[in-house]
């Protein structure tokens, strides 16, 4: 028994000292290959995935982002939507929730291909020695609401289309303005989304807005870490259903010294991670669960990631020192 415990502790120590950045880089790369090129290997994980595996990447996708079928379903004519067909909407949403609760917002930090592209653009900027930008706290407070606004519009506009209030040329509204529609198919050589649709005024405006947002996305992701995740309605939807998720980010406020390391490494600039010493489940709505905060925390057990209540990564002094030393040697 004792031997088993010591082995388990040894495994835990090894995990807690892991080079999280490298681990994350390779996992993201594998997930990117799976979701952007998996279709070429006949992989199909369905259409209820809680990440931007864009349906417009027609050839390579291994799954479909749930936001597309959700918008399509909601834009059905009302007599159909509010009939037996609503069962498909509900079952679709439940499937999405089941996928989601497995990784919580870890889908954003480790799996989402659009998030990975932003991390790669950030890595490029760092290599070029260009500093990154941060929002002021007042800007942060205002901008963090945008994703909820987009989520509301993403639901209301399709309902309006189904009710005959808006043109079908607006469907699916969020996908038409999502940069993933343009960017992800590009990785399989498909640039067909870089077009303006002149078939109607509505289509023209929607596609022009989509192209413009893609231009802003490329510039924004270059100067601001995870630029788009801040406005992502999928992130807002994630947060609203995150209670039953298995993966959790927990904080022990008694062990926190409020040194601020976790805040400084946070790509999403979530200040509560450093300031809040009362909340146990510390995951904020903007969090992408990259767990960089856990890796950067020098206090034993102050921050930890748990899966179904079992700690899988915990902040330790030894892990912190190991990662700091590696960071220094990499810096040389």
């Amino acid at each position, binding site marked *: 028994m004792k031997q088993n415990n010591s082995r388990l502790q040894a495994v835990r120590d090894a995990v807690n000292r892991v080079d999280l950045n490298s681990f994350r880089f390779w996992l993201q790369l594998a997930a990117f290959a799976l979701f952007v090129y998996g279709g070429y290997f006949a992989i*199909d994980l*369905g*259409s209820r995935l809680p990440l931007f595996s864009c349906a417009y990447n*027609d*050839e390579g996708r291994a799954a479909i982002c749930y936001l597309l*079928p959700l918008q*399509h*379903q909601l*834009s*059905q*004519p009302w*007599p*159909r939507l509010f*009939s*037996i*067909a609503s*069962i*498909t*909407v509900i*079952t*679709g949403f439940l499937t999405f929730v089941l996928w989601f609760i497995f990784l919580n917002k870890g889908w954003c930090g480790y799996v989402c291909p659009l998030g990975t592209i932003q991390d790669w653009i950030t890595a490029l900027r760092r290599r070029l020695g260009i500093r990154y*930008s941060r929002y002021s706290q007042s800007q942060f407070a205002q901008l963090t609401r945008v994703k909820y606004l987009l989520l509301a519009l993403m639901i209301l506009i399709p309902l309006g289309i189904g009710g005959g209030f808006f043109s*079908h040329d607006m469907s699916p509204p969020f996908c038409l303005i999502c940069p993933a529609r*343009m960017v992800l198919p590009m990785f399989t050589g498909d*640039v*067909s989304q*870089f*077009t*303006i*649709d*002149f*078939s*109607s005024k509505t*289509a023209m405006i929607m*596609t*022009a807005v989509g*192209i*413009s947002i*893609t*231009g*802003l996305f*490329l*510039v*924004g992701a270059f*100067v601001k870490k995870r630029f788009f995740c801040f406005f992502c309605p999928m992130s807002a939807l994630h947060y609203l259903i995150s209670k039953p998720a298995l993966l959790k980010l927990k904080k022990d406020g008694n062990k926190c010294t409020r040194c601020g390391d976790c805040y400084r490494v946070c790509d999403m600039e979530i200040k509560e991670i450093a300031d809040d010493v009362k909340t146990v489940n510390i995951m904020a709505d903007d969090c992408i669960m990259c767990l960089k905060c856990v890796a950067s925390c020098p206090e034993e057990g102050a921050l930890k990631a748990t899966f179904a209540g079992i700690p899988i990564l915990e902040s330790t002094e030894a892990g912190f020192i190991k990662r700091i030393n590696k960071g220094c040697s990499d810096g040389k």
Partner: protein
Amino acid sequence: MLATLSMNGYCQYSPAPGKQLELGGRPGAAMDRAAASGAPAGGGRPEAGNHRSNARSDGMGMHSGGAIWLSDAPPMRGGGSRSGNARGGGMGGMNMGGGYGGRAMKRLWPRAGNDPQKSSFAREDAQASTEILLVTPSSTPEGEPLPAPAESHTGIAFEVPAQGYYRVYLTTRKLQGKILNVCVAKAEVANFGHGGDEEEQARGMQAPRILESAPIEIVRERQPNEKMFFQLKSGDEQPFVILQKGLPLPSARVRFVSHQGWSREAVSDEQGRVSFQVIRDYFPPWGEFQKRFKATYLVIAEANAAESGNYQGQPYTSVRYQATLSGSYQPSPSDYMSYAWGLGIGLLIFLFSGVAVYLYRRRRVKPFVEVRFDEAK
């Protein structure tokens, strides 16, 4: 002899009174010429795999009443429509219809004519026998019989509970002199939705699309990587396979008729295959342009066979086969999508925001000011 006989019409349906076709040129004129030359209508016999010239005509052996085909729109309402129905893809293709809330239904109308827009309701011919078969994703490959519609305008209605392809075969047989005319009007309806069982959808996509007992059949070949919500577009190359009892039928005369009535003829090759490029024939004023305008195409295949036998106690010495298949196509995206504008706007926003961010950040950089402390003091 055969061409002359074909003028007489051989299907059990004929155009309803008062809704005669108004085809370009005199009905049957092409057949007159064919009869005079001893060749199929429209000119000399085309070589296998070769297309013949475009012509807005009713030639190629169709009788003056025109071919019988199945449409998902009744006459006058089928002149192109916006396919705003979220449920169902194309059959390159017919979309789903039916009421909301209850059981999903689909209705097809037998129509007579060689022009998708001008074909009227087909009317039953008491001298001919009719058989309607429905092949569903859950039925046997041989299909299930459907009752004939009481009146032509009510159409053929059937339920579409499962996702997948539904095929309807309207087969008519009629003896005219010593010739047995066998007509198979086929419709393939795709019933797919964004919700529902994905395994069911996959099964529906993989299910066979051929009726081995069909005397003659046109099968639309799938496009490479065709998915559930495929929609044929103007400009696409669309192959078809002509089958007889499930086997390729070479040398069948095949005609593709576009929504506006433009037609092209070809002869099936050794594999029973024939291919047509869907032309662009939708030119509305730009303000009225609809990118989801659902145009209807019609494919008509014909073949003669020196088969003899008895039909309803009467002998025949040859059989004339005719198959029809209709589907829909939409305007090509290249008609209304612009790369130049897309890339131009994207590049402009990229450069503008890039420069703006650069200048903003540069303005915020505080110039270095050296401060020296004299420690000696």
